[in-house]
């Protein structure tokens, strides 16, 4: 697969606040003619579209380590976005004189408006990653509770250990449900740990009282209560349409570039919302791209595959389509079943069954551990890039060197 090299991946934060364009300034200097008509423009735009197509083809072909919707795939998705964004910025910069002219000025302003909406999605996603971390804590409890006794000079699996693990799984399931149902109704019924000695009915009453303030023990979202990822995606998608012939002509083809980047932005944000838990997810945006664009095929195929995934029975009620979430759900389900069926003393066979799923759980945990931090940083990087290019773009619009 072709490596996507965007400057930020090595030192993303050192670049904040600095002009992206200045990175490329020397290389674009020669082309910086500012002429209305530029013979190289067609070529540049073609190259840009081809590049976008290649990046997304690569993303669509992902398998093995980068399985669709895995954390590493999402990271690759973000890399792809950054790559496209950078190329797009260079094109805008090269033709900045044209940027301020109607009708392109309106199209660019429109694009930046979409990007601002994407910033809120980035923040929501970052929030979702935080929630994800909280889930991982619960998985860690399970792993700690059921740590292999043979490695710890301990005896067989004890009831206390199992109960601890079981409780953590219950809590986790509730948390993951909670992400989906913002209403805390299910929590009023929650039974934090099974096998209480007595007074359970009044206990539940008591707990209901405790949790009446809303979410029981989940982190509050950092977006406002009324914020909705679904609505935000709708807003990003609003009025996005392929440029008509006369618009393409009037902008020397730049309208095509703007449409390409807007579509990339929309798709990437949509895929993020699909994958990662956030407030009021919804994937029902209208996504239409004429097949004639070279990048349309891979993006539409990815879109289709993700929609398919979301319609699968076991994924319908998920708080996110991320592969890791599915794995957690699977492990949780199996472990819960095995534990509920267990009798003491635990037979080796039963223990081995539990161990099998524990190993899988440990793997998920590990990949989350290694993946979440870089993912979060990348989301942040996307955020900064969008802010930066918007600021520069608006500068171009207002100080148009005529």
């Amino acid at each position, binding site marked *: 697969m072709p490596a996507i090299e965007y400057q930020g991946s090595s030192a993303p*934060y*050192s670049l*904040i*606040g*600095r*002009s992206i364009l*200045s*990175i490329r300034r*020397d290389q674009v200097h020669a082309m910086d003619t500012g002429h209305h008509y530029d013979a190289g423009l067609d070529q540049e735009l073609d190259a840009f579209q081809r590049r976008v197509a290649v990046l997304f083809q690569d993303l669509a072909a992902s398998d093995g380590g980068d399985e669709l919707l895995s954390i590493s795939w999402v990271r690759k998705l973000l890399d792809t976005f950054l790559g496209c964004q950078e190329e797009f910025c260079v094109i805008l910069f090269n033709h900045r004189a044209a940027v301020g002219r109607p009708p392109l000025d309106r199209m660019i302003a429109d694009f930046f408006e979409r990007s*601002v*909406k994407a*910033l*809120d999605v980035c*923040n929501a996603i970052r929030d979702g990653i935080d929630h994800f971390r*909280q889930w991982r804590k619960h998985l860690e409890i399970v792993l*700690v509770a059921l740590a292999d006794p043979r490695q710890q*000079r*301990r*005896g067989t699996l004890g*009831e*206390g250990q*199992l*109960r*601890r693990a079981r409780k953590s799984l*219950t809590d986790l*399931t509730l948390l993951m449900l909670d992400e989906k149902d913002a209403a805390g109704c*299910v929590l009023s*019924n929650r*039974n*934090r*740990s*099974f*096998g*209480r*000695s007595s*007074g*359970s*009915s*009044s*206990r*539940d009453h*008591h*707990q209901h*009282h*405790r949790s009446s303030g809303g979410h029981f*023990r989940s*982190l*509050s979202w950092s*977006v406002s209560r009324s*914020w909705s990822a679904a609505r935000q995606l709708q807003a990003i998608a609003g009025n996005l349409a392929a440029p008509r012939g006369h618009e393409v002509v009037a902008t020397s083809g730049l309208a095509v570039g703007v449409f390409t980047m807007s579509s990339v932005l929309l798709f990437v944000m949509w895929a993020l919302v699909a994958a990662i838990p956030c407030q009021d997810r919804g994937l029902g945006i209208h996504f239409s791209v004429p097949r004639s664009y070279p990048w349309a095929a891979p993006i539409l195929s990815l879109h289709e595959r993700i929609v398919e995934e979301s319609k699968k029975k076991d994924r319908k009620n998920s708080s996110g389509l991320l592969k890791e979430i599915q794995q957690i759900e699977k492990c949780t389900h199996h472990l*819960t079943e095995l534990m*509920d069926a*267990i*009798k*003491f*003393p635990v037979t080796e066979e039963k223990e081995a069954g539990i161990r099998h799923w524990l190993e899988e759980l440990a793997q998920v945990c590990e990949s989350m551990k290694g993946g979440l931090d870089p993912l979060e940083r990348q989301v942040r990087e996307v955020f*900064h890039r969008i*802010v930066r290019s*918007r*600021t520069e773009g608006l500068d171009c619009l207002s100080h148009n060197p005529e």
Partner: protein
Amino acid sequence: MEKAQPLPPQKSNSFSSSSREEKLRESNRSLSFGAIKLEDRHQKKETDYNREDRIKEGKEINADEKQEEKEEATKENFQEAEPNFIAISEEIDHFLAILVSLQDAQFQISEPPELPESNIETFIAMLEMEIATYESGEQKWSPDHDEICLLDAFNRLHKLTSALTPLSSNAKYNHAMNRTGSALHHAMAFLEDEFFSLLDENSRAKQQDPGSASSKTKRPPSFSRPQQQPQQQHEQDRCILPSAESSTHEDSPTYPPDVVERLRGIAAAMISAGYVTECSEVFAVARHNAFYAGLSSLGFEKIGIDDVQKMAWDSLEGEIATWIRAFRHSITVSFPSERELFDIVFSGHQEIANSLFSDLALRAVFQLLNFAEAVAMTKRSTEKLFKMLDIYESLRDLMPTIDAILSVEANEEEESASSPAMDLKSEISAIRSRLGEAAVAIFCDLETSIKTDTGKTPVPGGAVHPLTRYVMNYLKYACEYKNTLEQIFRDYQRSERPSSYDDDGDDAPSDSTSNHENKENNNNADDPNPFAEQLMEVMELLHANLESKSKLYKDQALCNIFLMNNGRYIMKKIKGAAEINELLGDAWCRKRSSDLRQYHKNYQRETWSKVLACFRDGGLNVKGNVSKPVLKERFKSFNAMFDEILKTQSSWVVSDEQLQSELRVSISAVVVPAYRSFLGRYSQYLDPGRQTEKYIKFGADDLENYIDELFDGNPSSMARRRT
């Protein structure tokens, strides 16, 4: 409350499928809603009887009797139980000592010591019962209701479990281990709940009506002990306390000391039993949510970036003020008190305290920064400058505190360049430089607004032009931020120039921002001050604009009055603001003062030199005699001129009182004496009576009075006086 909700799958949990009778006791906890409740109770009752042989008489009466009896039972129960509990605890300690000594001796234990099964069973049963009392909500676990020292007992339970575990290949031991292990887990789950509700209720109570918090603690004491009376007394005293505390301690501490102490105790117990993740997680979530509740009680609401862009400026202005308050409060008040809380609750576990606190602080600061970021991105307009500078200053001023809180400095060397704290630092400086850029752009936009103010309608009466007022007031306000603006302009220049001239544009903005403290100190004369330059530029533009506006007046005198008015207004504003004065420098002020004097002279010349010409002796004397017709002509033309001047110039506006009086005085000083002497020399040549009356319309003193009516913007004053 108990709606028929679809139960989540995990509700079918528990090990109830086990046939063991101990398990029955704990079965289907989760199903104990509504209709199932009775059955559940029934089950429990059975179980309790099954246990009868193992547990002393009088214990389980309490478990499932009617509500009224329950309390009574508890009392009885504990009256008896207490001494036993101590004895049993001692026996367990004794047994523990044996196990430990065996393990220490590294004996290959072929036959482990005999298990004190009934003691362990009783111990567990009593603990379970105690927990159940608290869990049922009948009673609240508190230092006043902790006769058996629950935490100590849990600790003992933990030790017992750990000691039994290595011997669990023995069937009896295995059985006991499972008993103690699950009891320990129950104990920990109980602590977790207690921990959370202590954190949650107490922080929530702070924001609500203090009275409601106290009513919760008002419960009749349910332990009948010999010292019941004092105990009750104590209990009632306690009821008052929390409300008194929560109303007097508004901002700190986060929790009353006794609550903090209990939190610490619970945390220590959970950590030592290996429940560190549960404990930290509950704590982190509770404090995280409390922190955000605190923010919203300060008025700070979560607003999306997109929404900020759409917000009307006056609402956004309010939000900014709130944000600044919330931000400052968080950094200077909330964080230190959180830090203290974390340190106490996790005393002896500094690493946990550190990591939990930095998680909270980082998350909170990132969240708060988001708003600043959103504001920096809003459409630029002149009125936003000052609020943006306010945000900028808050970020700048609180940066050292933030650094200290996250101990960025201390760890800088060991931290990799990509630690979250470093990310935060560069994020803050990025936002600052964005705000800075916005501020520079907005300030420079002032140039544009001056340049584009090309209205063709002159201000009536030559008064101060609205543009002058606007620009000067804006500048005056801006110069209250002089140091900040100077810093921003320097940073901006530094970040712009290298990137446009250097190929190696590798200097991050954080470099430039971290240096400015030094720069500020050696801010000497040869250090270029781009802000001062910009200010000068604005002043020059304003000057040029006013000059061209003055040309809109056809009357040269009025044109000078206009320039004088505006010039004076400008000077006055500058004199009134030491910052601008300093930036523009004395030379500039001298230059403008001399301009003003010139305008004044021009005006005098334009208006009054013709008047004074009437008083010339030349031309009046024809062959040694005063020519009467010429004299009459002189008086006539003086009268007409003065009349005309009065008519027009009294409608001119000089609103600056000092300037007005300076003008009048200088006019009087020139005109009145000249007129007086002219009258003295020539009035005798006119025939007294009709002729004098006709030609001498003004006495010298009248003249002075009339001159005092000039420039008051009242055109009809002359006419009124005449009639």
